[in-house]
């Protein structure tokens, strides 16, 4: 193929086989979800991510578009997660003075949140008679997906199941985080953010960023530290058992 035809191909290629529909539908669904959430004055149950997932899924059901087709098309949006996570360094850097003054809070949060996150899930699943493979897949559920998959494989869980559980945990934490903070009468954005990051990784962090920048910075920090420490500790503990 000549350079010229390659160039015309690049410029004039039909949009039909490009992921315009999937990407556009995702953006529109999230826009609608954000409006809906605002209409409900930001009620935690009206989480934009959750609403957008429901809207897109309903759309796929209605139009009979297979999930695989959608996921392939929406890969452009999924890809943006990488650069976005890197950018979490910015709120963290802006709030570095507050972070430095809160070392004790961060250590306590991790010392409690990391084990409780694992043991509560493992304990409940075990009591209700889940299979050991399911329990092992559940163990890293609070950790960001990229790390959780590696841990799951190491300790004998099922990677696909872990990804599903990680995302469910993220959405649960994003919805319940502000509700539980209100119930427990906790207003310190450092505590709420850190906890949401530890319990529900990036999806919780996306929600914490909506509270304010301090909550977002602490959430990103909680997510990162919890991920790194769980990756080191969980396989070690599983090896000892």
């Amino acid at each position: 193929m000549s350079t010229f035809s390659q160039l015309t191909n690049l410029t004039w290629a039909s949009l039909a086989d490009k992921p315009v529909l999937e990407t556009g539908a995702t953006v529109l669904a999230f826009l609608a979800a954000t409006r809906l959430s605002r209409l409900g004055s930001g009620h935690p149950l009206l989480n934009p991510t959750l609403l957008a997932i429901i809207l897109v899924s309903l759309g796929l059901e209605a139009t009979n578009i297979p999930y695989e087709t959608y996921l392939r098309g929406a890969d452009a949006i999924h890809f943006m997660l990488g650069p976005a996570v890197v950018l979490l360094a910015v709120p963290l850097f802006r709030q570095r003075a507050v972070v430095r003054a809160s070392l004790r809070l961060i250590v306590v949060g991790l010392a409690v949140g990391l084990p409780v996150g694992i043991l509560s899930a493992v304990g409940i699943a075990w009591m209700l008679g889940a299979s050991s493979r399911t329990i092992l897949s559940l163990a890293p559920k609070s950790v960001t997906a990229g790390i959780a998959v590696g841990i799951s494989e190491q300790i004998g869980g099922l990677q696909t199941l872990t990804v599903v559980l990680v995302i469910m945990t993220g959405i649960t934490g994003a919805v319940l985080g502000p509700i539980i903070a209100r119930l427990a009468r906790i207003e310190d954005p450092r505590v709420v953010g850190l906890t949401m990051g530890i319990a529900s990784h990036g999806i919780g962090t996306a929600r914490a960023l909506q509270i304010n920048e301090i909550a977002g910075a602490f959430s990103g920090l909680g997510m990162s530290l919890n991920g790194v420490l769980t990756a080191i500790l969980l396989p070690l503990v599983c090896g000892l058992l």
Partner: protein
Amino acid sequence: MLEQIARVMVWLCVGEIAARSGLLPLPAPVIGLILLYAELAVRRKLPADLGALADRVLQFLGMLFVPAGVGVIAYLDIFKTEALPILAAVIGGTAMTLFVTMVVANRLGTAVARREVREADRIEGAIRDVNL
């Protein structure tokens, strides 16, 4: 702005190389986050348009999880047989983690800071009293 996009992509790429070579057992974006933070810490200054870029992108961070979330619905039947223990563990476990961590971290983690604030208030009050 382009410079900042390049900066983010470069750190993400370095992260990808470090992750794939097995140098660090972490996903590329987390390594990229650490590297960008390290760069900012060394520079001691946040470029204004990097701040603007982060604010823009992080505002719709929640949207970037939508494709993965839709994927979860497609996979829901993989745990048909264990739906109850799984749902209870995810929802109950996450609620318990949030509650316990928030309460304990709030009590123990911020106690010192609060005592310091009270101490500062007391000293300030004493100074005020003296001045009066």
